[in-house]
């Protein structure tokens, strides 16, 4: 019996057994298509449908939305989502496609929407039938999220929305969007409000979804343009002018610091990534690359730099472990707030080092048959900037750490 299972409540123990029984008999078939490495990179309808089928099955079995009330489509259990997550991880089920819905939209809707809206939206969110996306970033509002300009104007019991959102993953599949916008231009923070709005049903009418092309040449993100989208006032979350507070609920859950545990599945499509550590990949690359007559893995300077990355990767992993040990932490947010900063910079530096290890061969890109690791590393290096920039650029993350954890004065 695992250590965690030993501490189960009776309800959790019974539920854990249920999960195990169900999972034993209901593993999904092998995917008919190659799965992406994360839900945010789902590109084809085939990928989506396979994963939606899995989410629906797991939901029907009670493994998703466990801790939400029954009337909202949940299972009405107490602290059971993490049991389901753990058991799905053990048997390596595929990941869940509605990742923004489950991780960000569900808790936000749950804590801030009207009762009938919750009952309307959450069941199909949990089942994966309706995919969600997030409308936060704008061309003029990057790390300074509160400066969004997308505007909703009141018109009776409707709102008319105009504006431009960018970096919206999954928008090309989404039925719904959580949307931070402005209802008052005279006040920065108190002028913000928060809505859920339909996307797919308005496509070609008041909503346009266009792919954004990344510097890598890949697509995946979208921009979404609202041209007089009309939504009912009932889709407003919390009061007018309270958008910033609602957004904080979203962001807390995005960072894993919210009250609700996000349903997550085992990530079968993700297996290779789980198995090989980031720096394990560097070692493998170095062992297969010739440099000045020996392998790069025999070059003392490169060894030293690879080990620097290993230490950062191990430190990151051990810090996450330590963040759950009460006796070994000071400020509760000290480690969690480092998470995005450290993982994104490690990814960037490790991929940058990999392109150096590759030497002249690092010039070869994805389409080249001779490219080491099929061009993965130059691609990963460029994509790493998505992570150091998005969700509050790392410069802003350092401000947050300095201000909230160290108590230094605000830098603005």
């Amino acid at each position, binding site marked *: 019996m695992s250590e965690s299972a030993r501490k189960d409540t009776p309800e959790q123990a019974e539920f854990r057994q249920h999960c195990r029984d169900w999972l034993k008999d209901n593993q999904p078939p092998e995917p008919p298509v190659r799965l992406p490495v994360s839900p945010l990179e789902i590109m084809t309808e085939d990928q989506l449908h396979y994963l939606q089928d899995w989410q629906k099955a797991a939901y029907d079995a009670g493994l998703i939305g466990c801790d939400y009330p029954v009337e909202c489509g949940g299972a009405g259990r107490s602290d059971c989502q993490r049991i389901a997550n753990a058991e799905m991880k053990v048997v390596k089920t595929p990941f869940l496609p509605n990742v923004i819905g489950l991780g960000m939209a569900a808790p936000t809707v749950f804590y801030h929407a009207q009762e009938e809206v919750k009952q309307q939206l959450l069941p199909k969110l949990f089942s994966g039938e309706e995919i969600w996306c997030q409308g936060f970033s704008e061309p003029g509002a990057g790390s300074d999220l509160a400066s969004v300009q997308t505007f909703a104007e009141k018109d009776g019991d409707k709102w008319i929305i105009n504006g431009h959102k960018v970096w919206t993953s999954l928008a090309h599949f989404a039925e719904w969007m959580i949307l931070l916008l402005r209802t008052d231009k005279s006040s920065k923070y108190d002028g913000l409000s928060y809505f859920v709005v339909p996307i797919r049903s308005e496509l070609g009418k008041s909503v346009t979804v266009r792919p*954004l092309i*990344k510097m890598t*040449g*890949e697509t995946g993100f979208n921009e979404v343009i609202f041209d007089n989208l009309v939504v009912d006032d009932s889709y407003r979350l919390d009061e007018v002018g309270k958008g910033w507070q609602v957004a904080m609920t979203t962001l807390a859950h995005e960072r894993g610091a919210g009250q609700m545990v996000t349903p997550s599945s085992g990530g079968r499509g993700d297996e290779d990534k789980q198995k090989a550590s980031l720096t394990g990949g560097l070692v493998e690359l170095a062992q297969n690359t010739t440099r000045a007559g020996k392998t790069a893995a025999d070059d003392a300077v490169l060894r030293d730099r690879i080990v620097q990355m290993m230490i950062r990767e191990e430190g990151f992993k051990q810090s996450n472990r330590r963040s759950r040990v009460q006796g070994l932490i000071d400020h509760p947010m000290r480690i969690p707030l480092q998470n995005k900063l450290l993982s994104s910079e490690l990814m960037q530096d490790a991929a940058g080092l990999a392109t150096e290890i590759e030497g*002249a061969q690092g010039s*070869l890109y994805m389409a*080249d048959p001779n490219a080491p690791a099929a061009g993965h590393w130059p691609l990963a290096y460029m994509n790493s900037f998505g992570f150091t*920039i998005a969700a509050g650029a790392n410069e802003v993350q350092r401000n947050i750490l300095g201000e909230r954890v160290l108590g230094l004065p605000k830098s*603005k």
Partner: protein
Amino acid sequence: MELPSNFGFGEEEVMLRDSAAKFFADNMPVDKLHALVADDSDPHKDLAAKWTPELWQQMVELGWTMLAVPESAGGMGMGAAAVAGLCEQAGKAAFPSPLLSTINCTYLLAACEGSAATEALEAVVGGSAASYAGINAAGSWEYADTDVMVSGGKLSGTAAFVQDAQKVQYFLVKAADGGQSGLYWVAADAAGVTVTPDAIVDLTRDQARVSFDGVDAVQVSADASAALAAAMPAILTMVAADMVGAGEWQLQTTVEYAQTRKQFERELGFFQAVKHPLVNVMIDIDQTKSLVYAAACAIDHDPEDAARLAHMAKASASDMAGFASSRSVQFHGGIGFTWECYIHMYFKRQMHNQALWGDAAYHRARIAELVIGAAA
């Protein structure tokens, strides 16, 4: 010997540099460059080189490919500082052309003895472009490494990572006859030559594997190592000059963005988290630029010290370029991560340059051998 206090960069060199700057600014502003090389974002697009042969023809007519060709071979016989000034401007424009490749060949050919080398130089003076084919499949350009063999005057094998291969009329091939390697001059359209383009990250270059299947070739040097040793300082200095120019573009473009883009009711450049790294980029560019011109000066006036300074210039350039590129994307934020923003062209050209002819750590190891001595 007293070195010229101005690095050999006098009035004539300033004029050349300024006219090059004007040529590139007039003919290839960055929006035009983007339309030319980034018209198709698909990573699996076809591999035809994107460039402007008509502008290249003008550059040839301006004499820019024969700056370093000795007057005895009909060239202009100008100093390396002049050539560096030109390359810096080409880099600042991220200009797609076989300029660096051809200049490299002129330095290599000038280091060879005999009439065959002179005739090859005359072909360049006559307007031909050329590229050095001397890197093996593993990416090594060590003097002794090559995958091309010569036997009975015919070349067989494949040279990898050949720069601008689709744009040139000649290859200068390093090939081994079992013993030491020599250099051979081969027309790109000669029978038995096959150019297979690589799919590369950089949008402003083309690169290829060039295969030779029993190709007739003219030997221009029986001792490739000697020619390479003589020309290597110039090869490194010119690519570093290109990188300095590109770095300066990255700096200026990012500074302009930081002066105007607002976040948290302040211009980005107000924040020291942006300002100080940009200052560090500037410092790295300045250090590199100084080393580039010091190396160029040494090539002409203190050849004994040229290798040390050129290795330093390229090591410094590679580190600088990595940092300048990284900060240019980071400080442009979301827009900097898109294809439509121009900075990715420079980011990718710098990535290419960083590895070309050896990265920073490689050159530092060479400097250590020169200055500290071989490691036990």
